[in-house]
């Protein structure tokens, strides 16, 4: 990485400039440019390689890893499809979407309760939430086993939904709480005086105002749930219910030497996310940072 500047004479192009040292300036700019470009290549090329390789066959892959594929072998994608990539994708989407709703809602309730409704024991409760922040999912694997069975949700997507919610409540609650603390109380108080109930204030007033942080929370929850692996690995048994991370690994151990088909599976798994991101990137990045930037 070449992002550290070493020349003390460097100056930004759109700021006040120093008269001398233009050679140093250019050299640094060129170096920085090269560095940034190298980083772009490092980011983009592996992904391009993944896409190109999914159209090749085994011998082409070994022989010319750099080149564009000789022909467009859509059959590889069909094989990957048949290996269940779509089903895994759907399962992941269901669990992620579900947990976004539950986590955001329950955390918003909790944050509202802590900040606006002056509940007793609020310090103790805050402490409990804080403690929950520090528990690793892997730590809970073995005990949750028996528990999930007794609750009869083992090997069902409900198990994942419940777990993804429970483990993210602390973080999300704190996120929303921090935002809520900065919000002026006068708004609430006015509505309360006008006769609105707590519940009405929550749904009609607080929630809409908190939109930025809720969007941030939802996006972070999505990233977590989409990637979650340990719980999905241990608590989902039936391959029809596997989520994407586990399903991809499964596929890998089944399609052992059919590298191009595996690449096709990876491409099918990654492409929707990338496309979605590129389409909504401004909202995504803004949503992610607006709330957290506080």
């Amino acid at each position, binding site marked *: 990485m070449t992002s550290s500047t070493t020349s003390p004479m460097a100056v930004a192009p759109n700021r006040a400039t120093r008269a001398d040292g233009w050679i140093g300036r250019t050299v640094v700019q060129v170096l920085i440019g090269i560095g940034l470009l190298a980083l772009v290549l490092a980011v983009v090329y592996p992904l391009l390689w993944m896409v190109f390789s999914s159209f090749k066959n*085994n011998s082409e892959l070994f022989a010319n890893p750099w080149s564009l594929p000789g022909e467009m072998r859509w059959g590889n994608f069909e094989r990957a499809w048949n290996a269940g990539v779509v089903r895994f994708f759907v399962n992941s989407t269901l669990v992620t979407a579900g947990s976004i709703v539950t986590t955001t809602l329950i955390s918003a309730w909790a944050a509202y309760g802590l900040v606006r409704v002056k509940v*007793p*024991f609020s310090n103790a409760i805050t402490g409990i939430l804080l403690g929950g922040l520090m528990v690793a999912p892997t730590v809970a694997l073995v005990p949750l*086993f*028996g*528990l999930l*069975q*007794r*609750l009869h949700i*083992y*090997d069902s997507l409900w198990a994942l939904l419940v777990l993804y919610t429970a483990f993210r409540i602390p973080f999300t609650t704190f996120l929303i709480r921090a935002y809520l603390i900065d919000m002026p109380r006068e708004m609430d108080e006015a509505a309360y005086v006008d006769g609105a109930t707590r519940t009405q204030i929550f749904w009609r007033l607080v929630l809409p105002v908190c939109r930025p942080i809720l969007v941030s929370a939802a996006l972070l929850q999505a990233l977590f749930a989409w990637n979650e692996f340990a719980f999905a690995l*241990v608590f989902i*048994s*039936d*391959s029809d219910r596997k989520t994407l991370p586990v399903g991809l*690994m*499964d596929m890998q*151990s*089944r*399609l*052992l*030497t*059919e590298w191009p088909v595996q690449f096709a599976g990876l491409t099918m798994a990654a492409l929707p996310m990338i496309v979605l991101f590129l389409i909504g990137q401004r909202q995504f990045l803004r949503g992610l940072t607006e709330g957290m930037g506080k």
Partner: protein
Amino acid sequence: MSTRSRITALIAVSAAGALAACGAPGTAAKTTASANLTSSAATKSGTLTIVTKFADPKYAPYFEKVAADYESANSGVKVDLQQVGDQPYKDKIRVLSASKQLPDIYFSWAGDFANKFVRAGLAADLTSVMGPDTEWGKSFSPAALKAFEYDGKSYGVPINLDAKYMAYNTAIFSKVGVAKPANLEDLIAACGKFKSAGYTPIAFGNQYGWPAIHYITQLNAMDVPQATRDADYNPATGAFTDAGYAAALDQFKQISEACFDSGSNGLSHETAQANFLAGKAAMHFLESVEFSVLTAKGGAPAELADNWDFFRLPPTASAAGDKGALTGAPDGFMVNSGSKNAALAVDFLKFMTSKANGAEMTKSIGWLSSVQGTATAENSFPQLEAALKDISSANSFAIWLDTVTNADVANAYLSGVQGILDGSQSPADVMKSVQDAAAKAKKSVS
């Protein structure tokens, strides 16, 4: 204050709710040994759950076909077949066992791997339907049946015969001027010749550790007497103090230095196989169930498909164990002792191991069936027939070292041998960790 007590009550209720869900860990149900295993023709209905490790697209279709055929022959029955990969199966079956979710029928390797299900009361005793005196039992090759016996009782249904052989490219051998090696020293010398001629002597990929273990299985069998091995492989009496074990590791080290490419820990077995198929390597150690991959029908290029043969991994001239032992074990299925469909499960397994389906197995996926008299000239190929002959003539069978021993010992070997391959551990180091693991296993089984 009443409010405080109300809060306390709230917390207590939640806690009680949570505690109510508590319980002692892992209490397995005791065997209902009297599971009814014989069904009358009229009562065949229900859903059978089966989990196998045969997700590989080469083999999966056979099992799917058997399941489909059984369903069409018995309209009241639904077969829920789940197939996972070889490596994921190892943890999946444990997860299923720990969560009491074992299917009606599940795959098992032979040896202590199967025995621990028996000891935990999770495998149904099948002696009454497939013991050596029963008609079904007599249809199997005796060695296959024996592999799944424990304490004199039968617990698993073998479905194939499998042995480990060194396949070699006859064209490369004659080109370089090497003859089939008669002992280990000759093999190592031959490797040197192949290296100088620019070939990889033995194509070998050890990513998950078991390929190396199969070498050790054969070497152990040839270097350590049977009685000692039997005692050591039994977790209750394992000690691994015989000098033959260290000798076996030493021999493996020599083989690896002379015959393998470096970096084998990072290559998968299948990638190495691809190298052999492409004619870049002279030899490849593989199982007879993989032989079909080397045939034209299985997709091998003609230069290899027409020019290969096999031999057993030869012993050293001074081996102290059983020089005629052959590494191999059948794959098998066990019936969940707690299954409500035990009789149906048995019936399904009988169907799978009928002569017709056994022959179909040989024909469609190139496996030797455990059922006698199913491999003929029509449904198999020359090398497979030769393998069957060789298997039938073996003195004794050495079951795969990573399934015949207790999991701790197996893991010590798996990890240790990977260390030998990349030079980070010596045979003495590995034997020490194996002995420690054996001591630990002894404690946990007693």
